[in-house]
């Protein structure tokens, strides 16, 4: 076994895992916030996430066609697509809640869950229909901005590209902003109040419906930002791209303790790192007997182990069972 190689790539694998982990964390927030206030899993969140990516690619392609992609400063372009992606996904999350979940709020638990799965399928094929008419394409390619592909060599095997830094910085900023919003503002207090007890919150003069909508908007916007960053980082999206990262982010939310916002971040990072380590090291350590294709099995086996010993997730608190 080539120890030098194993150690040499370690920092790079760590960076790869970190990027993936932050992406999962941003998406996981959407699942966990909605669960926190409604005890309901919004399975359409994977499509809400990828819509952000589609809005981003459409804007970038539009700018490119207008010849503005090269002339406008890249930071502005990125900011624009991020804000647009967040707005679109936030609005979509709001609309989905209003149309598909609110009428079912008092129905048995399984009913809105099924509605969510239906919305997920509907959105996938709606995107596919739209893109096949509008661009006659299935896979959409993010236009490259040369600045983003520049790399800083740290050692011969380790380097970081500008876009990876962008992903990490943007994710950190957004997680920090969310933390401040939830813990330091009146709106945040209201969200936490609704999560704790809807009836009591409404007695205190909180408009519960509005807070629930707001929760969806915030979670959706985080997902939309993740969608844009996903496209920028990996370069290619199609209408079904959202599904797998969505599922993984949901897992991350459960791992961290569903309903718990810092938990979603921790869960996302743990899952991203596990996956990157498994994909890079499995075949090196087993001499090719287990290849990178086993990365999910490896990562999920560890997840199961963690959940056996901490059923409420890494940071989850014991939630009172509801009648």
């Amino acid at each position, binding site marked *: 076994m080539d120890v030098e*190689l194993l150690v*040499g*790539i370690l920092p*790079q*694998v760590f960076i*790869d*895992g970190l*990027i*993936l982990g932050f992406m999962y964390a941003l998406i996981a927030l959407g699942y966990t916030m909605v669960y926190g206030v409604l005890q309901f899993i919004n399975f359409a969140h994977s499509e809400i996430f990828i819509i952000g990516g589609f809005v981003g690619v459409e804007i970038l392609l539009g700018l490119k066609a207008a010849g503005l992609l090269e002339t406008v400063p890249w930071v502005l372009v990125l900011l624009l697509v991020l804000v647009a992606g967040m707005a679109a996904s936030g609005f979509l999350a709001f609309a989905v809640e209003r149309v598909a979940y609110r009428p079912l709020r008092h129905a048995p638990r399984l009913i809105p869950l099924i509605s969510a799965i239906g919305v997920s399928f509907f959105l996938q094929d709606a995107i*596919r229909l739209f893109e*096949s008419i509008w661009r006659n394409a*299935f*896979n959409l*390619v993010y236009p*490259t901005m040369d600045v983003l*592909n520049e*790399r800083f*060599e740290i050692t011969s*095997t380790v*380097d970081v*590209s500008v876009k990876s830094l962008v992903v990490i910085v943007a994710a950190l900023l957004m997680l920090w902003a969310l933390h401040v919003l939830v813990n330091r503002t009146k709106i945040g207090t209201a969200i936490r109040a609704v999560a704790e007890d809807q009836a009591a919150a409404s007695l205190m003069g909180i408009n519960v419906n509005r807070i629930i909508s707001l929760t969806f908007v915030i979670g959706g916007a985080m997902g939309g930002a993740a969608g844009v960053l*996903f496209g920028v*980082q*990996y*370069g*290619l*999206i*199609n209408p079904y*791209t959202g599904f797998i*990262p969505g599922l993984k982010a949901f897992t991350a939310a459960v791992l961290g303790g569903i309903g718990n916002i810092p938990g979603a971040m921790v869960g996302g990072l743990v899952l991203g790192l596990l*996956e*990157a*380590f*498994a*994909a*890079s*090291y499995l*075949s*090196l350590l087993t001499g*090719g007997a287990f*290849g*990178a*294709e086993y*990365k999910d099995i490896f990562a999920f086996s560890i997840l199961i182990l963690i959940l056996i010993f901490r059923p409420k997730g890494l940071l989850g608190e014991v939630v009172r069972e509801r009648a």
Partner: protein
Amino acid sequence: MTGKSARIVFAFLVAVALALGSMPTAGDAQGKGTIKIATQSPLSGGQAALGEGIKLGAQLAVEKFKGNLEKAGFKVELVPFDDQAKPDVGVANAKNINADKDIMVVIGHLNSGVAIPSSEVYKEVGLAMISPANTNPTVTDRGYKNVYRVCGRDDVQGVVGAEFAKAQNTKSVYVIHDKTAYGQGIADFFKADAEKKGIKVLGFEGTEEKSNFDPLLTPIKAKNPDLIYFGGIYEQAGPFFKQAREKGIKAKFMGPDGLDSSDLTKIAGKAVVGMNYTSVAGPVSVYPQAKQFGEEFKKKFSKNPEPFAAQAYDSTAIAIKALEAVTKGGKAPTREAVAEAVRTVKHTGITGAVEFDEKGDPKKALYFVLQVASDNPEKWGDNKEVKRLTIAAPATKK
């Protein structure tokens, strides 16, 4: 109008529409019924570019060659099916195809992993499948009487690739595949022959990942191979190659005919310029007889034919020849008779002369090594032919 009477009117309209639909059409009235030719290829999803090419190639051939059958009193129709490049969808379609008694032959598929289980279904009723694109050896090695292909095989194509890599003075290679019957199959053949020729295989990895290749690429970069071979399809290879270059990997890229689509440059852009790939289907420009086909295709569908469109055109022409032979004297065709007749067809098509051996392989097939010429997807047809070989299908290893 009340709700009830509206419903009655609606029901009446539906009944009329159904009755009209089942009424004999003009073609049937003067003749002996309908012969349907089905195509199965991905018409939606990431591989639709190639799948659509197969459908359109077949459509052009039906329009061009159906004359004799129509004179004999048959109505000829093309029925396209979308297998979505998924084995389960292909099999479900195959069952529907079997159930439609008018379908006499299937042109397809694009993916070997779809063709193999689907042809098991065709076999139940002896329905002929002529494949324009399936290169996995198993497709014909099962020895089914109803399965044919007009293209070469991966056990040869993999060797052609390894030989070319050796001639390029490649010392080490990292092999990636997509875990499908096709991709993993050809990657295995490439790897085995590369090792035989003394090329060091630094790694052999399968992946179903479609977007994030970072964790796969990190060990590759550290091992620094001369060449990366990708056994798979362009929609996965495209982002892989692009991310590899972005990560600063300098290795040359190579792959089989699954990479042969203009969508590869649409996705990967500059990263794949100068890349070599092997194929059983050259671009239309390498076949002198195909020039007219290319022009007609462009005129009719206002796009360039993708690889395998010309092969689908030839496959369909062969099918129609077999149908003509079977319906000689105005007999109604049967599926078994058509499947048998295909074996005896000798056809000089636009991609060369085709004659089948007892397994359903072409007796001699062409293999190409091609080079990507430009990062402009419009210029995919200009890819340079680096090498061309005519090789007979290998005998089945027992």
